[in-house]
């Protein structure tokens, strides 16, 4: 019997398709209510840190250099009060085989797929993860398909995504390119059914576990070089895996007092599923269009329960503007002799601002860089933006309106990370958990789970539950 391939029929089979394609029975960790056993899921279906380190070592992944950005630190101190201006370090993740930290996630996912006997892997991603999976599949001898959202309805492709497609194809992957729309997931499911390949989702325990080595390594390196723990670690935040994995790895290194900061590019006002907005944004990831939705509802991903749970680990969340990131990308090249990004420099731009409010003897770590190249370059992105009617100018970055203009600072003192209200995010997450479960009378284990998942406590969650319940009655 041939399967019905209509959109509705395929979407209705989604949980079945996903179960076969990731080899995890998520039901085992469910409580039947809001709560699920996150820790047990991570333990039983993932790998230990030592196992992950040895898998990655065997694939040339990890052990990237930790570099001190002496000139950018000195520049930040220009604008700091006396005694202020923390040392800025960067973990040069571009040194991984595929050019980004995503190689860590891919190494584990592809290793796991091979171990389970899958012939190939599929990932739905327009970002660096595609190249990472393709690179690891090449190394480990599996077939690979990458599904990208790439073009608008005029057939115009985002140059950064086109470059990623090129890189995937360079590693021997098949790239399926689509126009804008969340139905990408439908194609993804169809391909999983057709090929029987492994779903190398970004959000499985092995994908997230793969990033733990990054957090662990950076703590080891900071301790070795400076004899102390980092005071702040800044992670570019989109789907939440980068921050979650890094923070978990830091905790495994017994680094318990470091502040974990998420940073996203501010794309407020642009709709992620809009055909017209698609090519009016100059960042394809690391932006608030993913960062906020994935923070307030992590289980929106392509697996039933996401292993990336950013609010569980995030102490602070800041946004930074497109023009500020482009400016810092240029500054990194000119003052440090490193051409990276631009999207991966989101956390760098934020760190440059945050360092100024930290004492001089403290350390702030930017935990990733990514490769740069044609399409994926500050000049390529600005030029593309200009061709799409975006005004490009120098000025005060507060004047930037996503989709209308990009304002590169006139002076580095104008680069300012802006805080996102964590309380609002936590509240919104708790509300979403309620609505998804149609449950306004949670049991004790749900409250405990929500407290853990928002890095708060039971009394905080209970207070919000009471407010939500009274709002729903009125």
């Amino acid at each position, binding site marked *: 019997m041939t399967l019905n391939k209509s*959109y509705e029929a395929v979407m209705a089979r989604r949980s079945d398709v996903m179960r076969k394609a990731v080899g995890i029975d998520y039901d085992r960790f469910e409580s039947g209510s809001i709560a699920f056993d996150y820790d047990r899921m991570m333990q039983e279906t993932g790998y230990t840190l030592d196992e992950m380190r040895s898998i990655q070592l065997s694939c040339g992944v990890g052990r990237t250099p930790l570099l001190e950005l002496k*000139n950018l630190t*000195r*520049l930040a*101190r*220009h*604008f*700091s*009060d*006396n005694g202020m*201006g923390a040392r800025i370090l960067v973990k040069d993740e571009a040194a991984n085989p595929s050019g980004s930290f995503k190689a860590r996630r891919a190494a584990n996912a592809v290793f796991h797929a091979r171990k389970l006997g899958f012939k*190939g892997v599929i990932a739905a991603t327009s970002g660096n993860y595609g190249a990472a999976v393709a690179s690891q599949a090449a190394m480990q001898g599996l*077939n690979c*398909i990458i599904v990208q959202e*790439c*073009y608008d309805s005029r057939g115009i492709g985002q*140059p950064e995504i*086109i*470059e990623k497609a*090129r890189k995937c*194809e360079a590693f*021997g992957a*098949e*790239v*399926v*390119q*689509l*126009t*804008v*729309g*969340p*139905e990408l997931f*439908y*194609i993804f499911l169809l391909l999983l059914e057709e*090929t029987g390949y492994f779903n190398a989702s970004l959000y499985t325990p092995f994908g997230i576990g793969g990033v733990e080595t990054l957090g662990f390594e950076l703590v080891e390196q900071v301790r070795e070089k400076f004899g102390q723990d980092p005071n702040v670690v800044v992670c570019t935040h989109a789907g939440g895996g980068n921050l979650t994995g890094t923070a978990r790895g830091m905790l495994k290194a017994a680094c318990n007092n470091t502040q974990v900061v998420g940073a996203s590019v501010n794309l407020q006002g642009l709709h992620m*599923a*809009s*055909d*017209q907005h698609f090519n009016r944004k100059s960042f394809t990831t690391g932006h608030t269009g993913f960062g906020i939705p994935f923070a307030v509802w992590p289980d929106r991903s392509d697996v039933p329960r996401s292993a990336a749970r950013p609010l569980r680990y995030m102490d602070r969340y800041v946004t930074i503007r497109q023009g500020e990131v482009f*400016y810092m990308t*240029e*500054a990194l*090249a*000119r*003052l440090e002799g490193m051409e990276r990004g631009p999207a991966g420099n989101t956390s760098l731009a934020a760190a440059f601002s945050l360092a100024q409010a930290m004492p001089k003897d403290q350390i702030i770590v930017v935990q990733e860089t990514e490769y740069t190249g*044609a*399409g994926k*370059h*500050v*000049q*390529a992105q*600005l*030029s*593309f933006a*200009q061709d799409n009617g975006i005004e*490009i*100018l*120098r000025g005060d970055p507060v004047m930037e309106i996503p989709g209308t203009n990009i304002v*590169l600072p006139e002076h*580095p003192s104008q680069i300012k990370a802006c805080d996102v209200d964590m309380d609002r995010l936590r509240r919104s997450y708790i509300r979403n958990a309620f609505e998804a479960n149609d449950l306004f009378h949670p049991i004790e284990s749900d409250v405990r789970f929500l407290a853990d998942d928002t890095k708060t406590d039971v009394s905080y969650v209970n207070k919000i539950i009471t407010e939500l319940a009274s709002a729903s009655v009125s």
Partner: protein
Amino acid sequence: MGKAKKGDWVKIHTVILKPGQRAPKLPEETLHVPLEMWVKGALVEEKASLGDDVTVRTITGRLVEGRLDDILPAYRHSFGSFMPVLQDIGIELRALMEKGERHDVEQKL
């Protein structure tokens, strides 16, 4: 050009969902356009011209049907046009670096 022979590397185009078939809750402008797909592979037919309905064998061995969109497709993305907005940033930063740290400057004054 415009003609491909069996085994040539080509790109095909397919409409996956027509405007009326798209997922609910999409922004208006996305609802009114089709969901389109492009895939590359080796041409299965003996010969074909641009715009013909063809089949390709992708690198993973899948057979996919679609309309012939490009023959021997090249990468044409680039570093874009020269952007004057970037011209002076490096120069300004170097000049700032020569000034020293703010409190150093203050102490000297």
